[in-house]
């Protein structure tokens, strides 16, 4: 009995010492740097493959379309708004790029139109983004909405993103926007 208790106490102290040592070692790694905790898409790397819509752990993806108005050309024939080769420039569903009708447009002045995204309808499929980057100024872009993002330990979309566009950023740059140009 005595020997067993002695061995037990020894191993307890060993385990305690190990925990403290490894804790201290890890503490040196944890301190002193700004956290990179927030998932963001690099809009310049994104190829709009459409996986953002389907691979997020949320039922409706946390990835949404954002619009950088300062980059937008305010065109009437918008590559993100209309499908390529439409006959009539009206709001019939077969002419619209967005499958959920999340893009709204408003007349500003001749010949300019302002485009806004209704985020509650957006599914992050990136169809409009593809149209805008191919034929327009690229003012529409996909980005992770930090209010909806669960900040998973490993972003499920990042794992399948073919262009490695999703990365972790620190709090002070929690959004990678496109309108600095």
């Amino acid at each position, binding site marked *: 009995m005595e020997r067993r208790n002695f061995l037990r106490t020894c191993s307890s102290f060993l385990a305690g010492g190990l925990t403290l040592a490894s804790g201290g070692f890890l503490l040196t790694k944890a301190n002193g740097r700004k956290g990179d905790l927030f998932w963001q898409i690099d809009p310049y790397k994104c190829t709009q493959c459409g996986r953002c819509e389907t691979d997020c752990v949320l039922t409706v993806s946390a990835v949404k379309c954002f619009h950088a108005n300062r980059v937008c050309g305010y065109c009437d024939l918008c590559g993100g708004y209309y499908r390529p080769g439409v006959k009539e420039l009206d709001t019939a569903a077969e002419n619209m790029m967005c499958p959920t009708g999340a893009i709204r447009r408003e007349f500003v002045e001749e010949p300019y139109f302002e485009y806004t995204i209704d985020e509650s309808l957006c599914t992050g499929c990136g169809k409009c983004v593809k149209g805008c980057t191919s034929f327009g*100024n*690229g003012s529409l872009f996909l980005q992770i909405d930090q209010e909806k993002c669960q900040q998973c330990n490993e972003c499920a979309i990042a794992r399948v993103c073919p*262009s490695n566009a999703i990365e972790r950023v620190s709090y002070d740059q929690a959004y990678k926007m496109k309108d600095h140009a």
Partner: protein
Amino acid sequence: MRKLLFVLTSLISVKSLAVARFPKPDFTSGYEYPDIVHGLPNESFWNVLDVVLLVGMMGLVVWAAYRKRSRAVIFSMSLVSVLYFGFFRSGCVCSVGSIQNVIIAAVDGGYHLPLYVLLVFLLPIIFALLFGRVFCSGVCPLGALQELINVKNFRLSRSVSVTLSIIPWIYLAFTILYAATRSQFLICRLDPFIGIFRFGGDIGVMSFGFVLLVMSVFVGRPFCQFICPYGALLSVFSALSWKKLEITGKGCVNCALCGVSCPVDAIRAPQSNRTKEERRKGVRRVIVLSLLLPVLTFVGAKLVGSQSDALSLAHKDVYLYELLLRQEANPELEEPLEVETFHAMGGDMAELKEKVDAVRSDYVFYSHLAGALIGFVIGFKLMKLSLKRGRKTYEISMARCTMCGKCFNYCPQNLKTPEK
């Protein structure tokens, strides 16, 4: 294919110039650009609250288990944990998953390990070293969820439960392998209950979660006992804990009621009335098993190590490389999206090969390590089984006990006797 490549590359190169395709409009009506409205994350506050609640709830469980011997407090803690850590915080970052962050931080100097993630990992271990698996009891939302719906305990036979309890170590070994090579977060992907907390997720993993939940109505905490790698880790520290939990403060009367009540088979019956085995026989068996231990470790390392190339396919770069090779061999196949994007972005095959070789050599090392760990655990479990302890009363095995507090209510010594 070449044509397709050309179209794609031209698309990409156009994209990089995309900003100037149409000039900025010059508005004459005094139109002003609207700002992009977006919600900012407010994580730091919740992270502090998480850690505070973690410590507070573990403290409460310690008080409830060691001082009050009250299941009611522990049970209500489980409810709070499922509601707050589970549904409200939707389960990220949890202590179970934090193993991976800690492993990556240990092997990769450039990886940032936030302080609160480290605390979430370390605090339950420190508590386990002091008081046992307090965290599992009513603080871990995964355990608490199973605890809340557990009704009946059908006892598994000892041999089955010991065999199954190797699974957490295998799980842990592969977690280490995949985390250290930066391939994937295995625990996060296979978390069976996170889909329930988030009301949606991968259908396969979620249905596995539901099966586990149905099982946990009849068997105590199947996930904690036979799957959870953090539980396996905690059980080591808990076995060496400073304080030992006692079912009653008034002395055991060997009524065997507590043994029936335990959902995780953590209460060991007294063995003093059994016939003792011959000492020489026991010593010989221990010597044989302790010789077997390094052999098993070696065999495990070799077995898993030999599969390192196949395992390395879990890494994104290796997978891409294999896809590229396959495409080169059979150009008539339809190009997968990964290959298409790789070419479109002007990826360099030689550069990728260099990366892949580095990853593969990492895999050789870590897969041997994982195999060695599995072999060692199997050998150690065999040794542990062969050691027979003489017990005179019913005792709690701290390694297994998840402190649900059921035995407190079953013990007749804990009944409040009316004052005479």
